């Protein structure tokens, strides 16, 4: 009898030890860092822009340094801007199984239509810097699917405005100052444009300027092109400057800009003019 009890005790102890080992080897790789997900850092994210679409690529890797295979690894992600506006619909990357001891690399690859956002009124990302948040959900099974692992990571990546600044350079401009003007034609306005580097290589920006008179409205206009990518400038030289010298004095400058598909307009007062 005693031998039977002792045998039963040993069998139970063996089963319990096996269970403890199973539990330990299933859990330990996660807090110990043997199973880890290397998410993309901001400097690993690459951006390209083409025809109003921003294409984003962000590499990541998953290291299964545990004791068991990872099963059905799936990565879901979505991207928000700082105002929690979703730039894309939720996307899924099915990775599948990762054998124990192996590292799997993949990349988050998506694009969003910035031009559509711009036309819809979401102009923030075009003219101001932003912070894009990548929300990445990782789910997988471990230890023969006895353990379910789910994790949500957020990676914030700075977004540089496509068109950072623009405007006339009055110090480099030449405009009539009175009637008749003491400044002789030809009249011109210098204009500068600072754009994101990802726009470099695209067709140059088209800048059209119109001088608005004090009493007669639009006096004359001219246009020029400015290279994209970085800080560039151009000068608009107005035709019929001689007529302008005797008719009116411009007090405002209207600009029409076409930069990488983005079109907008505005008016600025001419510096130093007081009617």
């Amino acid at each position, binding site marked *: 009898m*005693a031998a039977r*009890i002792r045998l039963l005790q040993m069998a*139970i102890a063996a089963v319990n030890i096996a269970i403890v080992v199973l539990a330990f080897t*299933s859990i330990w790789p996660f807090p110990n860092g043997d199973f880890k997900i290397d998410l993309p850092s901001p400097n690993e994210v690459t951006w390209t822009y083409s025809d109003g679409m921003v294409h984003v690529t962000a590499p990541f890797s998953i290291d299964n340094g545990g004791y068991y295979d990872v099963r059905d690894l799936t990565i879901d992600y979505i991207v928000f801007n700082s105002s929690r506006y979703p730039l894309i619909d939720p996307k899924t990357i099915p990775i599948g199984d990762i054998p124990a001891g192996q590292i799997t690399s993949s990349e988050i690859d998506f694009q969003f239509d910035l031009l559509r956002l711009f036309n819809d009124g979401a102009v923030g990302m075009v003219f101001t810097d932003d912070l894009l948040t990548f929300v990445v959900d990782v789910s997988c099974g471990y230890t023969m699917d006895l353990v379910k692992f*789910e994790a949500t990571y957020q990676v914030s990546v700075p977004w540089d405005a496509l068109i950072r600044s623009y405007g006339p350079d009055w110090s480099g401009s030449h405009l009539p100052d009175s009637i008749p003007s003491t400044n002789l034609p030809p009249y011109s306005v210098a204009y500068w444009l600072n754009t994101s580097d990802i726009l470099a290589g695209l067709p140059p920006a088209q800048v059209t300027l119109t001088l608005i008179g004090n009493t007669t409205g639009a006096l004359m206009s001219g246009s020029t092109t400015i290279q994209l990518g970085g800080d560039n400038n151009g000068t608009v030289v107005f035709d019929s400057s001689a007529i302008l010298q005797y008719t009116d004095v411009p007090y405002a400058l209207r600009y029409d800009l076409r930069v990488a598909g983005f079109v907008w307009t505005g008016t600025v007062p001419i510096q130093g003019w007081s009617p």
Partner: protein
Amino acid sequence: MDWHSANPGVVPVTPKSRLSDATWTAFTDALRFIVVPLVLIDLVTKNYPQLTTAFMPEIKLYIIFFGGMITAASTLEASNKSGTWKRLLFGLTALAFVCMWLFIVLGGGIAQFTYGPYHVRFDMSKIVYIMLFGVSLKGLLVYSTFSTHKHYLDDQERRRKEERASEWAPARPKPLPRRKPSGPEFSTMSKMAFEVSHDDSVGYAPPPPPPPEPKPFQRVLAFKECPICGAKASPKEMTCKHCGAWFPKDTIR
């Protein structure tokens, strides 16, 4: 073969040792299931406040309750004699509470960890169920111990009953000696003297003459006493030399 020789190593527990066992069980179980877990939980919640489980807000209360129930049940189990139904009941109850306690401590197998922008959810409920299965296997041990000792107790009880029955049974009358079938008793016979003479004419054969009995050894005295004066004289003497009296005829050789 008695129970002890059939169960080497299984020592029946006396009431005194059961009491000390119960005390020790209460102490160790209170340590194992209440004190140490509370200290560990306190350490974990202080160092990792981001870790949450379903029972985390009230986990200390749960540990005290279920740990207390385990301690109570185990103490009652140890205080009862092995092989009794009470011990089996309390043993299995303690085991059930251990399973509940483990389930609570492990948060039902689902743990969540939130740290800044990171959120990790770890669902190991299947492993927890396997662990509960492993713990519940001890129920087999409890039952096996119960059945083994129950057999012993049943034997003891049967023996005790037999002894008690023999003590309380009424004294049996002594069986009378069996009478030999014999002829009429002397008591029933007439006490009047009568002569029985054999009658050969009715067919009785005269019994054979008894074998000659050996003469008993008679010690021959070397002297005889005078019946008158008591003086000693030789057996051949016819008269006493002391007083001159005649000796009886049968004393003369």
